[in-house]
């Protein structure tokens, strides 16, 4: 039974995540002012079904949140609002919040309430139905709020003052808090007053006290059960706030609410600009109850001196929590979250390699923070789940039905072939030889098809990665104050899933860079005679057995002069050295190289580019830059398909056999020596129709003995890679065949000009030529040879 439920839950999460993606892209398609009925309906359906699902699983706060969003969408649908940009932004924020809530719920972790509340407040700001309420009187708001949440929710304030020796007994407050968090929504605040100075601090001692707010359908005994283990080691006060709240007269709460409003507006991470003050108060009280209630309670003794303070409040006074403490603490959660998000960098890296369990991770974060002070459980766990999600995603793959159908068909055929071979083998006679042969041929064909289809399952269209960019570009361009049009093409180009996953971070980085540094602000663009709106183009396509991804912008381009200066000032270059643009681009990839005059919050140019390149290289790909000042920059990423199989052309040079990818071969021809010219006595070019193509003699590049050296006796294979063509001189062409790519790097290392190896029919190894690498090598081959020769001389002397 329980297994069934978890499966259904899992399904709910998966579906919800998927429909949120749809919602996001629908929102981005939504035009300001003109509400497209279909889009709105589709968005509405998403929110509605999430609300329904959340209801089934009793995710109460999610139901409430989704309900508000639904109300707004309903109002839009019925034409009560015209769609504004602010509205779209808030709804996008809603998507984020829902996604965050789902992730946290999936991981059974408490979520970051403050962002939920901020978003809720902004959502309410648009609501027609509530606007009337809020304008009338705050009292209505306050009374409305508890009614909404009141159903079965209770509010508990737990004051937990452990003895200094608590940790020594093997108890860790975090475990207790985690338990509590399972009961309901938990807010944890630590009291740092008793912290000694660093010199006096004994790490084994626990100096902290905590004030916890628990919201949910919880009985007192549940809470007591959790603290049972530490009963003798602490001072524990559990207060039922819900009882207090109800017993309060409306005016009392009202005033308290108003005073709470001030501090709670400080508290909200991004105070909504649209919402008017009362609405803010409403939102704060209404849903930030856990926090706000504490404010109410804490404020009461001071602000309500005149009014009657109910006796029930006295336990609160004994808390001895300074008033300003509350305010300062409300800042710390943010700081802590910021800190933890910084921590991401160091923590997520090991996660990549071997994802540790969340528990270990959490411990790491705590240790690193050096805090037993769990100012927010929420902040930490929000980050945790962020690191968790990729691993959970990676475990499954969605495959289109037709790919599966293909597989089933092939397997069906395979079964038929097998039974046919069975028949042949029964009472085998030489007469049946032809039949056997046919059967084997069929088997071979089936095998190949099966292999191809299985490979295709791993292939995903690159749109899986591109899909996130509309949102990214939208958000970034807003925050940077730029106008950007995003164009995407070739989204259907398929790429191996692993490659795709590893590429998504580098792509995000490049897109951010393009927006941050590449595309200028509207005014600058107009001044430069360009359209106000910048263009960012993501383009994916196949080229010569590789996948190419281009990220181009029509922005300012690189400031080559500045790169040059920077390279000199950082000691990478001598002022007198002649440099080409290509060499200057190289510096961009240098760790820590930045020409940005001021580092923006996004990035300084060059920061992270080394990582981008490393990631791409680790996939066996390459990245290069083309930039024209004033016209824009293009990043070209070349990636192998990682299809372990390619159609190969076997070529012979001397006694060696090499393999060229068929896709990279344009033509092969016999050389007419009259059409060969030499440049500067060294480099040879071949006149192919109207083009001059550099000739690369493979035997000389690879030092292969016994090869044909006279051009007339061999063949020139015209190959293309990285947009360049060369004529590769080989002895002869052999057969063409499908080859399985084996990595050289597994046991050896990557070799320039070689992309891998394969095993031929006779069991021997043949090397696969890397066309782009050969071209690069040919341009630099002379110095290498000379230096290599020197090395060898050096070796022999010893």
């Amino acid at each position, binding site marked *: 039974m329980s297994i069934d439920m978890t499966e259904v839950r899992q399904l709910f999460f998966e579906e919800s995540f998927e429909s949120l993606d749809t919602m996001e892209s629908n929102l981005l398609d939504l035009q300001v002012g003109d509400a497209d009925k279909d889009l709105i309906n589709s968005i509405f359906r998403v929110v509605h079904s999430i609300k329904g699902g959340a209801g089934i699983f009793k995710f109460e706060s999610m139901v409430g949140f989704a309900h508000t969003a639904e109300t707004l969408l309903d109002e839009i649908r019925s034409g009560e609002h015209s769609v504004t940009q602010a509205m779209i932004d808030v709804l996008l924020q809603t998507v984020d919040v829902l996604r965050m809530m789902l992730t946290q719920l999936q991981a059974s972790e408490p979520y970051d309430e403050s962002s939920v509340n901020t978003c809720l407040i902004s959502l309410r700001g648009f609501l027609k139905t509530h606007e009337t309420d809020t304008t009338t009187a705050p009292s209505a708001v306050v009374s409305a709020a508890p009614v909404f949440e009141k159903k079965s929710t209770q509010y508990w304030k737990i004051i937990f003052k452990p003895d200094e020796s608590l940790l020594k007994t093997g108890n860790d407050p975090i475990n207790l808090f985690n338990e509590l968090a399972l009961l309901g929504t938990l807010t944890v605040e630590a009291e740092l007053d008793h912290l000694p100075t660093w010199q006096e601090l004994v790490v084994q001692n626990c100096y902290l006290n905590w004030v916890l707010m628990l919201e949910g359908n919880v009985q007192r005994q549940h809470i007591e059960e959790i603290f049972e283990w530490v009963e003798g080691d602490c001072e524990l006060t559990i207060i039922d706030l819900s009882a207090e709240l109800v017993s309060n007269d409306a005016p009392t709460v009202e005033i308290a609410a108003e005073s709470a409003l001030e501090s709670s507006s400080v508290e909200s991470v991004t105070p909504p600009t649209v919402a008017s003050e009362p609405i803010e108060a409403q939102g704060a009280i209404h849903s930030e109850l856990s926090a706000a209630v504490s404010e109410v309670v804490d404020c009461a003794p001071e602000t309500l001196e005149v009014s009657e303070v109910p006796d029930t409040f006295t336990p609160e006074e004994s808390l001895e929590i300074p008033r300003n403490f509350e305010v300062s603490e409300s800042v710390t959660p943010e700081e802590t979250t910021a800190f933890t998000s910084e921590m991401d960098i160091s923590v997520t890296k090991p996660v990549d390699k071997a994802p540790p369990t969340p528990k270990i991770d959490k411990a790491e974060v705590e240790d690193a923070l050096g805090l037993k002070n769990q100012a927010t459980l929420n902040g930490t766990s929000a980050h945790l789940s962020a690191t968790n999600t990729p691993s959970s995603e990676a475990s499954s793959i969605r495959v289109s039905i037709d790919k599966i159908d293909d597989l089933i068909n092939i397997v069906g055929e395979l079964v038929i072939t097998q039974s046919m071979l069975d028949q042949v083998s029964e009472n085998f006679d030489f007469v049946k030889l032809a039949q056997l042969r046919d059967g084997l041929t069929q088997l071979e064909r089936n095998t190949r098809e099966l292999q191809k289809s299985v490979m295709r399952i791993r292939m995903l269209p690159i749109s899986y990665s591109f899909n996130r960019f509309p949102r990214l570009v939208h958000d970034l361009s807003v925050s940077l104050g730029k106008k950007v049009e995003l164009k995407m093409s070739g989204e259907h180009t398929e790429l191996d899933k692993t490659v795709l996953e590893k590429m998504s971070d580098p792509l995000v980085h490049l897109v951010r860079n393009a927006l941050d540094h590449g595309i200028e602000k509207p005014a600058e663009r107009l001044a430069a005679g360009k359209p106000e709106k910048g263009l960012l183009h993501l383009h994916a396509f196949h080229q010569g057995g590789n996948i190419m991804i281009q990220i181009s912008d029509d922005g300012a381009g690189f400031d080559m002069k500045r790169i040059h200066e920077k390279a000199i000032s950082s000691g990478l270059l001598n002022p007198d050295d002649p440099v080409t643009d290509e060499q200057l681009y190289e510096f961009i990839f240098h760790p820590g190289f930045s020409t940005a005059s001021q580092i923006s919050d996004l990035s300084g140019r060059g920061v992270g580019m080394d990582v981008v390149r490393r990631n791409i290289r680790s996939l066996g790909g390459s990245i290069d830059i083309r930039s024209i000042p004033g016209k824009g920059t293009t990043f070209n990423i070349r990636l192998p398909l990682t299809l372990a199989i390619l159609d190969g052309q076997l070529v012979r040079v001397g006694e060696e056999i090499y393999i060229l990818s068929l896709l990279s071969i344009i033509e092969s021809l016999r050389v007419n020596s009259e059409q060969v010219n030499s440049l500067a006595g060294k480099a040879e070019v071949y006149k192919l129709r109207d083009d001059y193509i550099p000739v690369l003699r493979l035997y000389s590049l690879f030092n292969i003995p016994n090869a044909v050296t006279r051009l007339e006796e061999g063949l020139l294979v015209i190959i293309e890679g990285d947009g360049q063509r060369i004529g590769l001189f080989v002895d002869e062409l052999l057969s063409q065949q499908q080859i399985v790519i084996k990595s050289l790097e597994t046991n*050896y290392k990557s070799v320039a000009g070689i992309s891998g190896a394969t095993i031929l029919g006779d069991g021997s190894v043949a090397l696969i030529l890397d066309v782009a690498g050969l071209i690069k090598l040919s341009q630099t081959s002379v110095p290498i040879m000379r230096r290599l020769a020197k090395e060898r001389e050096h070796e022999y002397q010893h």
Partner: protein
Amino acid sequence: MSTNTNTSVAQIATNKYLTFVLATEEYAIDILRVQEIKGWSKVTVIPNTPNYICGVINLRGTIVPIIDLRLRFNLERLDYGQMTVVVVVKVMGHSGRERIMGIVVDAVSDVYDVAESEIKPPPDFGSVISIEFIKGLATVGEKMVIVLEIDRLLNSDELAMIENIAKH
């Protein structure tokens, strides 16, 4: 720390070394690193690599590089023939990744039990002999065997340097 010493004590009894002959010298490698011993088969030459890298072979579907230990140690080259032996070993790469490679030796000699304590650090010959690949010297009966540090064979600075040249 105490557990460490315990395990090494336990290992003393069980450390077996495979020895092989190179020129007139006897070298030893930890037998747990030896995957198999095979005869010489034709290699595919990898272009532009140092001369001691013979090339790569197909070891049941895996591409395995072959290193000529004589050339690696700057000894005189010996022609490959029927008697040439390739010892396939596991080495640890820089990143802690396991690699498989073959080393060409003159002949396989014996398997010895060598206690850890019997392995003495190599004396410093100055620059006369590179001790980069030598883990230590062990005495077996009357003989001295050279215990090799095989992880360095493929990961030496020299190779990295040549790799760098090729890149630029």
